[in-house]
């Protein structure tokens, strides 16, 4: 089957407007007879549920949490981009579009990204109208800040809790529709399969996580908004419950899965402290504005620090290797996320990691504190200030900028980052791959849509800061509500979809059998045992840097872990009760399949691209020697995989990417 992206014809700036002018509409009286299921109620699913209900459709929304307010969108810190040009610094729809395509290493779909940039300004207006308390300046107007990879200030923010406030905005819009009876909310429910009738998505099978009851729900269309799958690595910055299940189930029923190997590795996370670690905590990227990153130059100093014989502050400037400043003099500590992450791993792999696990580099604020301190002394007219006074003045400035992050670090690591450098290490953060969708956000299953992080379309191989929130809300508030109407206009005479059909029966039976298998399997190993084992293979062989040999090994090893899992997994408790171990078992079973497809996709992509360094594809000489080498000639395509049973048998479909409005260029940060 050929992939049809359904990108409208015409100049890029007119595509979305022309499209909206020509699609079929559903009249308001008919919307009342149409049901839509939305799985996941974070930024994308929450905003979609509220808007579809507002339009008049009957929405059934599903969340595995006790409330939509718990979705992991809530943890996003930095901000949301929008091409408002409030600062008058030259921003425009085109520039946001350009930065996003370039930042994504030219592996996203131009038309989708342009539309995203186009609706971005609306998002801010909408959220402000809903009472989202964005930061304001003293004149009462909205404040902006800048993020990595761009030259303008277009990031809107609410302290370090932008994701929280945007999610609560979408949640409040949902609440209004729940009160009106237009959204029926199913909390603590997990979707375990999609039901396809006559080739169209017509419903889902869900499990009530309190009672264990298996339920059938029908609708005229199904929207998947279930977030990312970074937890395939076990350790990531994702919430513990974040999973791939909804996306994977629709994949197994016919939705192609695109670019599974595109994962963002974030450079500034708190390092792992031991084998018991359950997840990783992100420190905002904004810290790199003032922190200098280094490791000791000499191995004997590394050993002395690890053994506690020396402190980092004992080392002089000359004894430190500021490796980002050394390798990338133009951008220094502010190189993009993928470059900073790879460089940290390179130093740690060479043995220079500074903590007991050997997986940490220093992020040092000493220079910034001194610089701010001297400046403050001048401002306050303090003559000949002592070092202590300079430090005190400088520390106050750093505290005002990053106080909450420093406090969070101190709580976790039990060290005062004002006095000793922070330790950081890269961690898995966001997945740019996901379910393949066309311009309408429809998957390869008619009537089944996929939005937000769960789809693949907008970020390419690397995501710029402050663009994830933008995509989630753009899809949910402003894109899907139009595109789904075009499809649903064909359903105004269909009437209620019955759940009493062989298709629902078969899907329910399959789900029940799997659950019964888990609770009856008398295995000897916990679900976490397998998840950790999978995560280790993923990180070691399909992580930030990869090679063909390692990826082939990873595929075989994951298959072996999967086979052992189905023999040896032990799930205590029963099916008909709240059973968190059973929930985890189902999710890890899906990760064990996705993980193998992930490695297969990475093996096929013989180029370094975005956050992924393919060891065989590096620049061999010239000014970029040793840096990642992209291969536009052979790999400027979306890899969409079709399910054929075993992940190793998945069939590749290519959507060739066309760049008509942006020239493909090498990214250089030297």
């Amino acid at each position: 089957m050929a992939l049809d992206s359904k990108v409208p014809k015409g100049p890029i700036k007119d595509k979305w407007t022309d499209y909206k002018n020509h699609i079929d509409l559903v009249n308001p009286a008919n919307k009342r007879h149409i049901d839509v299921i939305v799985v996941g109620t974070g930024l994308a699913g929450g905003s979609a549920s509220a808007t579809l209900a507002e339009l008049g459709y009957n929405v059934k929304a599903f969340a595995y949490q006790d409330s939509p307010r718990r979705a992991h969108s809530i943890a996003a810190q930095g901000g949301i981009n929008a091409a408002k040009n409030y600062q008058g610094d030259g921003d425009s729809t085109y520039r946001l579009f350009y930065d996003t395509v370039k930042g994504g290493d030219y592996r996203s779909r131009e038309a989708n990204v342009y539309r995203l940039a186009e609706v971005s300004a609306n998002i801010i207006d909408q959220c402000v109208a809903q009472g989202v308390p964005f930061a304001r300046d003293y004149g009462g107007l909205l404040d902006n800040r800048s993020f990595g990879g761009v030259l303008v200030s277009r990031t809107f923010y609410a302290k370090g809790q932008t994701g929280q406030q945007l999610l609560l905005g979408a949640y409040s819009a949902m609440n209004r529709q729940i009160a009106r009876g237009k959204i029926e909310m199913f909390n603590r429910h997990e979707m375990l399969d999609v039901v396809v009738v006559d080739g169209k998505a017509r419903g889902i099978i869900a499990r009530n996580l309190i009672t264990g009851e298996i339920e059938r729900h029908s609708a005229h269309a199904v929207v998947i908004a279930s977030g990312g799958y970074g937890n395939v690595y076990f350790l990531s910055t994702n919430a513990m419950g974040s999973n791939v299940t909804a996306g994977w189930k629709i994949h197994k029923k016919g939705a192609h899965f695109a670019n599974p190997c595109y994962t963002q590795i974030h450079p500034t996370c708190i390092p792992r402290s031991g084998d018991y670690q359950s997840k990783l905590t992100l420190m905002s990227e904004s810290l790199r504005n003032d922190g200098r990153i280094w490791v000791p130059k000499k191995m004997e100093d590394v050993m002395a620090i690890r053994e506690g014989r020396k402190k980092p502050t004992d080392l002089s400037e000359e004894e430190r290797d500021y490796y980002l400043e050394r390798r990338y003099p133009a951008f220094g500590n502010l190189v993009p996320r993928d470059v900073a992450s790879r460089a940290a791993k390179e130093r740690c792999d060479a043995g220079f990691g500074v903590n007991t696990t050997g997986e940490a580099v220093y992020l040092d604020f000493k220079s910034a504190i001194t610089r701010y301190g001297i400046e403050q002394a001048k401002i306050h007219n303090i003559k000949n200030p002592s070092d202590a006074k300079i430090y005190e003045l400088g520390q106050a400035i750093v505290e005002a900028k990053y106080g909450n992050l420093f406090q969070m670090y101190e709580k976790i690591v039990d060290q005062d980052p004002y006095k000793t450098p922070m330790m950081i290490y890269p961690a898995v953060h966001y997945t740019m791959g996901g379910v393949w969708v066309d311009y309408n956000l429809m998957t390869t299953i008619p009537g089944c849509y996929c939005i937000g992080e769960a789809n693949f379309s907008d970020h390419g191989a690397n995501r710029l800061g402050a663009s994830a929130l933008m995509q989630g809300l753009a899809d949910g508030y402003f894109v899907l509500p139009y595109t789904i109407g075009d499809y649903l206009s064909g359903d105004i005479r269909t009437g209620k979809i019955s759940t009493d059909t062989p298709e629902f029966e078969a899907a329910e039976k399959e789900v029940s059998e799997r659950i019964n298998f888990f609770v009856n399997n008398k295995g000897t190993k916990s679900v976490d045992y397998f998840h950790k084992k999978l995560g280790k293979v993923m990180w070691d062989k399909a992580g930030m840097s990869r090679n063909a040999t390692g990826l082939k090994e990873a595929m075989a090893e994951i298959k072996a872990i999967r086979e052992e899992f189905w023999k040896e997994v032990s799930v205590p408790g029963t099916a008909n009760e709240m059973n968190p171990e059973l929930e985890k078992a189902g999710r890890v079973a899906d990760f064990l399949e996705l993980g193998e497809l992930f490695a297969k996709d990475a093996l096929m992509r013989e180029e370094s691209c975005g956050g992924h360094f393919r060891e065989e594809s590096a620049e061999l000489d010239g000014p970029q020697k040793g840096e990642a080498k992209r291969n536009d000639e052979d790999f400027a395509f979306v890899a969409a995989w079709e399910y054929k049973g075993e992940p190793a048998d998945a069939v590749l479909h290519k959507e060739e990417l066309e760049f008509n409005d942006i020239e493909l260029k090498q990214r250089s940060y030297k």
Partner: protein
Amino acid sequence: MNLTLKIWRQKDASSKGQMVDYKVTEISEHMSFLEMMDVLNEQLVNSGEEPVAFDHDCREGICGMCSMYINGEAHGPDRGVTTCQLHMRMFKDGDTITIEPFRAAAFPVLKDLVVDRSSFDRIQHAGGYISVNTSGNTQDANSIPISKHAADEAMDAATCIGCGACVATCKNSSAMLFVGAKVSQYALLPQGQVEAADRVRNMVAQMDLEGFGNCTNTGACEVECPKGISLENIARMNRELMKASV
């Protein structure tokens, strides 16, 4: 370190619960409290027993999911943190730690340490929103300037994560810190003014209906709130309610 845990076990909402003793060994002081619970659960699963059910998710202190009552305090002995940010260095080798679910009539226990906080959602359904269409046809965001002071204050109120520590801590199981925070956020912003009177009336009525108690100005909620939501929000809610009633 080695610890004795006294944990509330309850099969489901209708069963009777009881405290059960467990031992955990080799707990590192660097672990979070939830990682210590993971160790216990791994131990239970390996011996074929049912692990202790507890709510948790982001483990970054922001989703509001974790809800343990530790040694008689919501989220345990540290200040300004949720249970996921509580670290084992707050405890000593040989300690006995009592772990219970949040206790309030409006938060019924579902299993072990998991409670049902949907009453919070129903209070929000009663008016915790601004009635604006999600059409994207709203006016430009800068067309209504908002003073930095008001925006910052609204943001402080909006910081509430809905964890319910205020309810669990209050001797009356009052939800007024939670409701006050939401009422305040909208009361401080021009966008929320139009329906302010209905909002506060409806939210307070729903709060009473759910079985939450009243505030008697003890202030324990503010002390235990992981996000430092201030009592001023309760005062503001009362003023708003008064305004709406005259």
